[in-house]
C-alpha cells in the first residue's frame, strides 16, 4: 500500500507533476487554423467550459501531447491527445452587449479583448 510520508510532501509538491505524454500524435490543426469548438454536454468530466462551446477561434499554439482528461476521469485510461491554445475574441464568446458604456464601467474588458483557452484536439473541428 503506497504511503505518503511527511518527509516526501514538500519535495513532491515542489516538483509538481505533468500529464505530458512521451508519445507522438499527428496534429490535426496548425497554428493559424480557424476552428470551431464542439457543441457537447457530456455527463462526465471535460475541460471545455459551457461558454466556449460552438464558438469560433484560432489556434495560436500547439502545446504537445497530454493525457486526455475526459477519458482519464471516466475510466482511468491514459490516452494521448494534442492540446492547443485557442484564441477567442471577447465578442465571439460574450456577444456585442459588453461594449455598452454602462457595462464597460462595470469592469468588462474592452471590445478587442481576447480569451485564450487550452483545448484538447477532440473539442475542435475545422472551420
Amino acid at each position: 500500500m503506497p504511503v505518503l510520508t511527511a518527509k516526501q510532501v514538500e519535495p513532491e509538491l515542489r516538483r509538481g507533476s505533468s500529464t505530458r505524454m512521451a508519445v507522438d500524435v499527428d496534429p490535426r490543426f496548425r497554428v493559424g487554423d480557424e476552428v470551431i469548438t464542439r457543441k457537447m454536454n457530456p455527463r462526465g468530466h471535460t475541460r471545455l467550459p459551457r461558454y466556449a462551446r460552438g464558438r469560433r477561434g484560432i489556434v495560436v499554439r500547439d502545446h504537445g501531447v497530454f493525457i486526455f482528461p475526459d477519458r482519464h476521469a471516466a475510466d482511468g485510461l491514459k490516452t494521448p491527445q494534442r492540446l492547443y491554445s485557442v484564441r477567442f475574441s471577447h465578442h465571439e464568446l460574450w456577444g456585442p452587449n459588453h461594449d455598452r458604456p454602462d457595462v464597460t464601467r462595470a469592469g468588462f474588458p474592452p471590445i478587442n479583448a481576447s480569451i485564450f483557452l487550452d483545448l484538447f484536439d477532440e473539442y475542435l473541428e475545422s472551420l
Partner: protein
Amino acid sequence: MNGAHDLGGMHGFGPIDNEGDEPIFHADWERRAFAITLAMGAYGAWNLDQSRFARECSDPAHYLSGSYYEHWLDGLERLLIESGLLSEQEIAERVADLATPAA
C-alpha cells in the same frame, strides 16, 4: 459535466474578495482536509482527473455556497465511498461521534 463548478459567465456573486496577505488555510480543519486529500491521492485508488470530477459532482446548491476546502472534502468523501474504502454510514457515524461532546 454541466455542474455548478462551470461558473464562467454567471452573474450575481458580487466582486471578488481579494484578501491582503491571504493565509494558506482559513481554519485548522482545512489543513487536515488538504493533508488527507494528498495522502489519499498518493494511495493511488484514483487519479487527479477523477478527483476533479468527484468535486464537480457535488450537489450544485451546496457547491455554490461552499468554500474551497469544503469542495475538496466533499470530493474526497465521494471518492472514498465510490472506491469502497469507507461507507456513507461509517462517515456519518464518525461525524456523529465527533459532534458529541466527550462525557
